[in-house]
């Protein structure tokens, strides 16, 4: 038991590295927020663009969405972080992490929002267009608000799943929660910082998981 406590909950180590993990938490929160905002906005924008059914555009969007949903984000992170400098583009580790996860979330969000747009009844388009709204106005004021409501639960789940992947930043040296904890773990030769990291993740993400449960219950009722 002593060995267990000493390994995972060493008070001295915990106290020493708590500040740096707190700093890591700040990085994780900031990155997550940016990824959610840009990822969802980018995905929704792609879905809207796709709704115009311009020749060729839909195919390009589908290829992007399928490739970025198929590739493991870690592969993309390594590819960009270690590959791009060879052609003269040097991006910092947090920027690479932000870019990759935003694009991946964008790919999923595009598919989810697109499903919402196509699930909106045709009569909504017709009513809007019959009053003189243009296609774009009908999309913005009538279809998108309904589509977004419909897809909030799957979108929230996906956003949580993707933002958790900020932990992958560790492999390229992003000083997020896991990055800080892992550094602390190698200095202290003790797993307690990782315990702290786990606690930090739960504290940060549990409210969102609970919120998604609530959203799901709320939006499971018919749209009004």
């Amino acid at each position, binding site marked *: 038991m002593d060995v267990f406590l000493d390994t995972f909950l060493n008070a001295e180590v915990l106290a020493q590295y708590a500040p740096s993990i707190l700093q890591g938490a700040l990085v994780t929160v900031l990155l997550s927020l940016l990824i959610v905002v840009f990822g969802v906005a980018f995905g929704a924008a792609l879905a809207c663009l796709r709704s115009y059914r311009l020749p060729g555009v839909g195919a390009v969007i589908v290829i992007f969405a399928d490739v970025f949903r198929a590739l493991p984000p870690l592969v993309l992170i390594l590819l960009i972080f270690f590959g791009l400098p060879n052609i003269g583009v040097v991006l910092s580790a947090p920027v690479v992490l932000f870019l990759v996860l935003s694009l991946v979330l964008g790919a999923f969000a595009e598919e989810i929002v697109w499903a919402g747009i196509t699930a909106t*009844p045709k*009569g*909504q388009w*017709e*009513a*809007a*267009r*019959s*009053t*003189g*709204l*243009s296609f774009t*106005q009908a999309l913005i*004021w*009538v279809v998108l*608000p*309904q589509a977004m*409501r419909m897809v909030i639960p799957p979108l929230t789940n996906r956003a949580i799943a993707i933002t958790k992947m900020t932990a992958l930043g560790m492999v390229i040296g992003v000083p997020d929660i896991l990055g800080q904890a892992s550094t602390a773990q190698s200095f202290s030769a003790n797993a307690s910082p990782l315990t702290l990291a786990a606690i930090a993740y739960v504290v940060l993400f549990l409210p969102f998981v609970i919120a998604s449960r609530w959203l799901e219950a709320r939006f499971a009722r*018919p*749209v*009004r």
Partner: protein
Amino acid sequence: MPAPAPPALDIRRLHKSFDTETVLNGIDLSLTISEMVFVLGPSGSGKSTMLRCCNRLEEPDSGEILIEGDPVTGPSVDLNRMRQRIGMVFQAFNLYPHLTALGNVKLALRRVQKKDPSEAEELAREALSSVGLSEKTSQYPNQLSGGQQQRVAIARALALRPRVMLFDEPTSALDPELVGEVLAVMRDVKSQGMTMLVVSHEMKFAREAADRVVFMDGGRIVEEGPPEQIFSHPKQPRTQAFLARVSS
């Protein structure tokens, strides 16, 4: 002498097919100002398609549609502008579920006609009160009965001050006890001098309220005339057969 006013709605040689099936096979129909014309016919006769061609929710294959002499069809037409002159009421109401009754009516006033917020609000309240719903402005569609929803939909179309109103089976989705309130509103709209083209199975209402009844079958107008003539003394065998079927 001034030239006679052009018809409120003029449909000329309208043709429409879906794939290989001809749905409209040369429709000519013209409505004078303030006229209420009822369109009857078996399902698949092209009634709804004809109506939907009038504001180009369906694109006609050929033919012309004119509103007060101005073309709705043709490449140089500003369609969103013309559509404001043609109100449409749908069988399934098609209210926007995320907006209140007032929001439903206000949307096109704000976004299409670019009224400022207070004017749009006032016009929308006026339109809702004209269909007897001034108490329901802040309700969402799912808080309203079917009859009330359809009245909101009528108000939404009327608020834009259209020159012609199209009704596509406006009472077909309603419980029988709710039909009356919608017909009462339609009667009211007519008394204000609106030109109305109505596809409906409400024979009794057609007989009482319509100025003219048109019977369609197989994508053509088979017979037309005053309601009394069509209902009591139909000339064409197809009209007679249809009326016998629906009245039995």
